[in-house]
């Protein structure tokens, strides 16, 4: 079904392009603990790719490898047809990769708008001196970046909390603000670490809609980790299943659902 370069067409008629990112035989260890063991998969242009698995399966570690935060002991990360060297997080961001965190990592004391604006930092070129002068390039740059931030705020429907300090927001909205900050950098690849953890049904539905809309409107490639199987199966085009650091399944939601190894991992297996 898959062709290395050609891509494929989803059930709802979206065209998925070629490989954007490829993980080749990744192994990650923390001392004696092997978090990820020899895992390979790819992420294609324009798709929503999910990584699922039971607790402790190594999903977040995998996402940290993709985002360049962890460096695997073995294996290679290929991004846009080239092997990616070891990078600092800001260099990863400059490449067009943005992420959200499982435990929200916003600047609590700052307003929603300011938090979203931090997503534009990699685009701000004015030096500290021109910033201090303000008039001229620094101001133009700020206005241009603010416009992008405002479009994201409009898109995610958080206008009413624009000036509210993040610390005063409920959990579900904080998650949305984090997504807004990630989107503000206009990423090519968006990494979402459990975007729906701890949300109620309505908040989950809202978040799902936003994720789909982001993918639809901006063509952003999305890789997400999620616990809620229902959400994952509805949202994603392809799913990687991990268990104890190993890949036990990879394919469309339907394929994964009927995969015996996956069923065993989730429902348990009778040992005799």
């Amino acid at each position, binding site marked *: 079904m898959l062709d290395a370069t050609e891509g494929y067409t989803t059930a*709802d*008629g979206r065209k998925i392009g070629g490989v954007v990112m490829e993980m080749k035989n990744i192994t990650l260890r923390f001392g004696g603990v092997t978090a990820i063991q020899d895992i390979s998969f790819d992420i294609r242009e324009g798709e929503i790719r999910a990584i699922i698995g039971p607790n402790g399966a190594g999903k977040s570690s995998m996402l940290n490898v993709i985002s360049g935060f962890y460096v695997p002991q073995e294996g290679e990360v290929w991004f846009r047809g080239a092997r990616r060297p070891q990078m600092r997080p800001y260099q990863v961001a400059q490449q067009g990769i943005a992420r959200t965190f499982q435990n929200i990592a916003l600047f609590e004391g700052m307003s929603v*708008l300011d938090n979203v604006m931090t997503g534009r930092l990699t685009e701000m070129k004015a030096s500290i001196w021109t910033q201090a002068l303000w008039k001229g390039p620094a101001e133009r740059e700020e206005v241009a970046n*603010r*416009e992008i931030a*405002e*479009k994201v*705020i*409009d*898109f995610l*429907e958080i*206008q*009413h909390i*624009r000036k509210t300090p993040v610390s005063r927001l409920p959990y579900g909205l904080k998650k949305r603000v984090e997504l807004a900050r990630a989107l503000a950098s206009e990423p090519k690849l968006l990494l979402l670490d459990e975007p729906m953890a701890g949300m109620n049904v*309505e908040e989950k539905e809202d978040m799902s809609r936003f994720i789909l*809309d982001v993918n*639809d*409107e901006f063509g952003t490639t999305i890789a997400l980790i999620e616990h809620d199987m229902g959400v994952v199966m509805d949202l994603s085009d392809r799913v990687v299943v991990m268990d104890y650091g190993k890949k036990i399944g990879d394919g469309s939601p339907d394929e994964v659902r009927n995969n015996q190894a996956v069923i065993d991992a989730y429902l348990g297996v009778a040992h005799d």
Partner: protein
Amino acid sequence: MAETTAGAEGLRSLPALLHHNATRFANSPAYREKEFGIWQSWTWAETEAEIEALALGLMKLGLAEGDFVAIIGRNRPYLYWAMVAVQMAGAVPVPLYQDAVAEEMAYVLGHCGARFVIAGDQEQVDKVIEVQDQLHQFEHMVYLDPRGLRKYDHSRLHPYSDVQAQGRAARDELMPEMTRRRDALDYDDTCIMLYTSGTTGRPKGVVLSNRNIIESARSSAEFDHLGRGEEVLAYLPMAWVGDFIFSVGQGYWAGFCINCPESPDTMLTDLREIGPSYFFAPPRIFETLLTTVMIRMEDAGRLKKRMFDYFMAHARKVGPAILDGKPVSGWDRFKYRIGSLLVYGPLKNTMGFSKIRVGYTAGEAIGPEIFDFYRSLGINLKQLYGQTEATVFITVQPDGEVRADTVGVPAPGVELRIDESGEVFYRSPGAFVEYYKNPESTADTKDPEGWVATGDAGFIEEDTGHLRIIDRAKDVGKMADGAMFAPKYVENKLKFYPNILEAVVFGAGRDRCCAFINIDLSAVGSWAERNNIAYASYQELAGHPKVLDMIQGHVEEVNRSIAEDPMLSACQVHRFLVLHKELDADDGELTRTRKVRRKIIGEKFADLVEALYDGSDSVYTETEVTYEDGRKGKIRATLEIRDAATVSLQRRPMAAE
């Protein structure tokens, strides 16, 4: 500010008024909308160009004279333009409530046979697509916000901007025809059709002519000296006649600027930024604002709270008198001025009422305490009484004659009559033409001489000439012993308490009154937080014994206040329960304008009503609810029923059995 389009006599349609304003006030702002955090504005000249482009585009799509065009969405300049563009093309706009569910929309669209629908966003487009198979005349839909609609089948779906672009391209070809249609609009042609939400039965399409709209806008603008300098926030449902008159009729007549909020959730922030000079809101909005203020004051520091309480008490004493220009002692005036500096001014600023010159409330009776609160701050809040069929205005309160318990004197050009049963009738230039395709209802409501029945019971005060409305004529009943039963009167008193969102009183034909109560989640929730009361859901909070104690206190206070009016003292609430769910328009319990449908509630919760009267202490019930996406579910609860102390006519406290 005094300059109005007084020379606009002879302008007999909204497109004609638009053209007049675009000529006279070409560069003054006509519309503003906050988008991407900035107020964007359009002048009258730009507005006319936008509207013309849309009208031509719609004609290009095949819009014919006399067609009906449904318009659904939140308040946005583009949708207000759509209404006038439709008129310019000789068709009739039919604005619909944006929160209507698909079946309700199907009925209205089918009833008027709309060929075109102009929708605000994906949500509205989806609803129309869901029911389009039932609509034989439906042809094209124009949408405003393209988000999420990219993959939809575009054979009958057109983006708003594309329609305008096509209109601009076809300008040379279609302009003569459009000019002909616009100039052909006569004073007695239909201006707009509005569906009344209807407390009972199917919605009815109220046909209003250009005469109705323009005459009402003109006389009311003159009554309150509205000029082109007014600032108005358009946030009420576009399908409601009030919004059409205030945001379109009067705006076009006087030439003032209409401001649209950024999103429904930002309304209070936008209100504060705009600082309207002329403001209209149903009592619910004033209640919500007051509740917000009260909640925040509960959390304020001790000094601020004491200052607030002290000066508010003073304001209640002398504020309304100062506003009405009545004599007040110098010391009291001085103290009021200090209060303005420390409390009233900042408070008005927070609520966005700093610049308000005239404020109106209507739609339902407002609690006197709420009304006086705003008046005492120096906000010229007045009441008016009206309905869709009258193009809003039946009676209004003139400056200086404002009271909480009346709805004012007949508006300019309105004649009033009270019939033997106490029902109020009126005749006016604003009286509607007919109910669309419903001659029986038209005949029932409007007699050949032009008198229209309001369905409300009231009387005219002998000495002042003010009208007082008691209740809906069919709701005012008798109790078993023949005493007058006016449920709304009691409900309004209960609803003044920030903790009570909604109340439904029963008692017609019974020996005593009982009530259902809905708590206000934001107010009671904040109270629970302060008192360390844990709760997981609305239902749990509503059933908490301490909440019941608090509500019981409110009910008993209301009973004491009702007992002071000998005519209505029989309406004291003997027993009550706190409902386990919020009353909701989606479940048919409220109308879209959030009026209580007492009869439907009585039938739906018949088991609870029964329990109120049979003396039991608690009752188990199951209720079907509709979720936002249309799915249905059930909630189960065991509700506690409380007895409330009542005051007997001899003013002797008496515990209920």
